[in-house]
């Protein structure tokens, strides 16, 4: 059986969730791998949610908000736009491929676009394969060898799903 990724989709209530709704009412087909979590605004997306999702073993996180300029809360999506790249840096530091986190704008009228975003992201995650969380411990010797303090050494053990 091929790998079926498990993906968390965090959707804003006004654009993306409504867009997903539209895709549904229009009977558009897209992979069932994304399970959506509704928040009022993409500005509500706490990086903690994303980290928590990865900690619980999701293969990818998709965050969707209103197009720039269209935010129901005027500029919540810009807040999100600032937070996601920072979260990606955090993920990289944790050994998680930043490609597993994706931010996309989907408006309430873009059911077809939602379908495409979901399909593309699912395929992207499928290509990346299952998440391999690695246990990391602080190894002073390696850190010294690398000339940096606080860097992480890899124990090489995949985390249990």
């Amino acid at each position, binding site marked *: 059986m091929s790998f079926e990724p498990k993906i968390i989709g965090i959707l804003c209530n*006004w654009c993306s969730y*409504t867009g997903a709704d539209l895709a549904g009412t229009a009977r558009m087909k897209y992979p069932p791998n994304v399970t959506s979590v509704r928040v*009022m605004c993409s*500005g509500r997306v*706490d990086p903690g*949610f994303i980290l928590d999702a990865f900690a619980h073993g*999701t293969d990818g996180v998709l965050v969707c908000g209103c197009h720039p300029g*269209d935010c129901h*809360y005027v500029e919540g999506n810009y807040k999100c736009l600032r937070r996601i790249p920072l979260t990606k840096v955090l993920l990289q530091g944790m050994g998680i491929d930043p490609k597993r986190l994706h931010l996309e704008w989907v408006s309430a009228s873009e059911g077809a676009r939602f379908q495409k975003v979901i399909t593309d992201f699912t395929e992207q995650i499928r290509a990346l394969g299952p998440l391999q969380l690695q246990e990391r411990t602080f190894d002073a010797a390696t850190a010294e060898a690398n000339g940096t303090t606080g860097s992480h050494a890899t124990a090489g053990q995949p985390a249990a799903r």
Partner: protein
Amino acid sequence: MANVTVTIDGQRIEVEEGMYILQAAEQLGIKIPTLCYYPHMAPYAACRICAVEARDNKGWTKIVTACNYPVWDGLHVVTDTPRVLNARRVNLEMLLSRCAKVPVLARLAEEFGITEPRWGQGDDTCIKCGLCVRICDEVVGAHALAFADRGINREISTPFKLESQDCILCGACARYCPTGHIQMTDIEDRILHSELMLGPNAAIRIPFRQAIPNVPRIYGNQCIHMKTGGCMLCAKVCPKECIDFNDRDQIEEIEVGAVVVATGFADFDPTPMKQYGYGKYPNVISALEFEQMNNAASPTSGKIVLEDGSEPRSIAILHCIGSRDENQHKYCSRVCCMYALKFAHLVKEKTSAEVYQLYIDMRAFGKGYEEFYHRILDEGVNVIRGKGAEVVPAQSNRSEEGGLLVCCEDTLIGKYRQIPVDMVVLCTALEARADAADLARKLSISKGADGWFIEAHPKLAPVSTTTDGVFLAGACQGPKDIPDSVAQGSAAACQALRLLSMGEVMLDGAYAVITEELCSGCKICNGLCPYTAISFDETKKVSVVNAALCKACGTCVAACPSGAIQGRHFTDDQIYAQIEGILA
């Protein structure tokens, strides 16, 4: 001022002292001919046509000019004795000797029985009455005209006979010149084509016939008073003293319980689509201009005419200009098909011209619309399925057919066609107003990529917006015809009234709350809130959420470094639990 009694042609009248004979006679309805007189200005007595005979009780008598002779108590005036008529006749004869060709003088000459003036028949048209100079000085206040030279060489001129920098092109001199010596030919042409095809307008006017309120307004950019501080004629003639030059646009703050947004649409400007030659060829006009021409109150009185005033022999109506176009607006403007059909019907009704409709798809979607389409077909309108691709001037060898060629692909017969027509009407797209984004921001409502405001739900809340108490009506929400706009407007009004009649507003249960004990008072959330719902309590040194203003977006919740803020119904715990549940 004291009143005096005067007798004019045997009729006694009591008037104010200092009034001139002419004004007193006017009150009695006695006509005295004038050329250089204009009310609201000091009299000048240049033409001397208004000669009358003044008498007193003791036998004194004198010929005086009625326009500038002030009345006094016991004055007797006669206006029709042979002596008076002779005085007027001689004066008129002298004017005729200089200006024999002027129609107004010729009419007077006929009245006074002058066939041939004794001192020759000059071909000048200026009687040197100076009305223009005085209007320019006293009324307009521009001081752009004056007398030049003296004696028989006296003439009206701008300083040094050069184009005057002081002239404001108001045209008052030309309008009040009794003989037509001053003309505005060049200027008039420019004024005629300034505002669509509406023609010259007074600076004070009722904007259009159905204007609400139906009262005149002053157009500041045209008003002479606004330019020179002079004129004020409208104020002088208004019996109710309604004219207020100091009135200005004001910004008023009004407290309301609901807002209905009905800002409508803007008309797509087809000028950038060079292929249609709008603005280049005078007989390529937009649908709005065609509609205006058809209005009975238009300069053409509702006649369909070409630029040169002749009736067109053929008209092409091009659909979808700027709409259903990958390069402009992708959406359908919805109303164009039907008004284009109406145009065709009007053309058939008013003229004998051939009509060509060039359409992509005929969208006769409403009640009775399809029937109207069939009626148009029966009237002999040529409908061609194919979008008009280009409008070019007709080659000279085909010019007898008309001035323009419309190129298109007739997709039903699969052929490229060139249709010679006299006039092209462009059915331009409806587009969102340029300031829609500003309004959306002001009202915290959303607009789509096309600029139309977005309703809260396409099916279940078609007049509500995502902001409580703000409702949408009409074409600001998307292209819409009149019945749909009326229906939506009624619905929006109903929704607004429902809200008002409730008296109090029920708030959504979702809003942010701050746990005082956890708040460090960092104020990060204060600046983040798009609704300024978060303020800082200086005594407690914590931030406070105003639940009535909070819209529960949660931006502050995600930003709070100490986790003191929770969004009700979307708490961290709830979302973490959801994620856990999904991944379990």
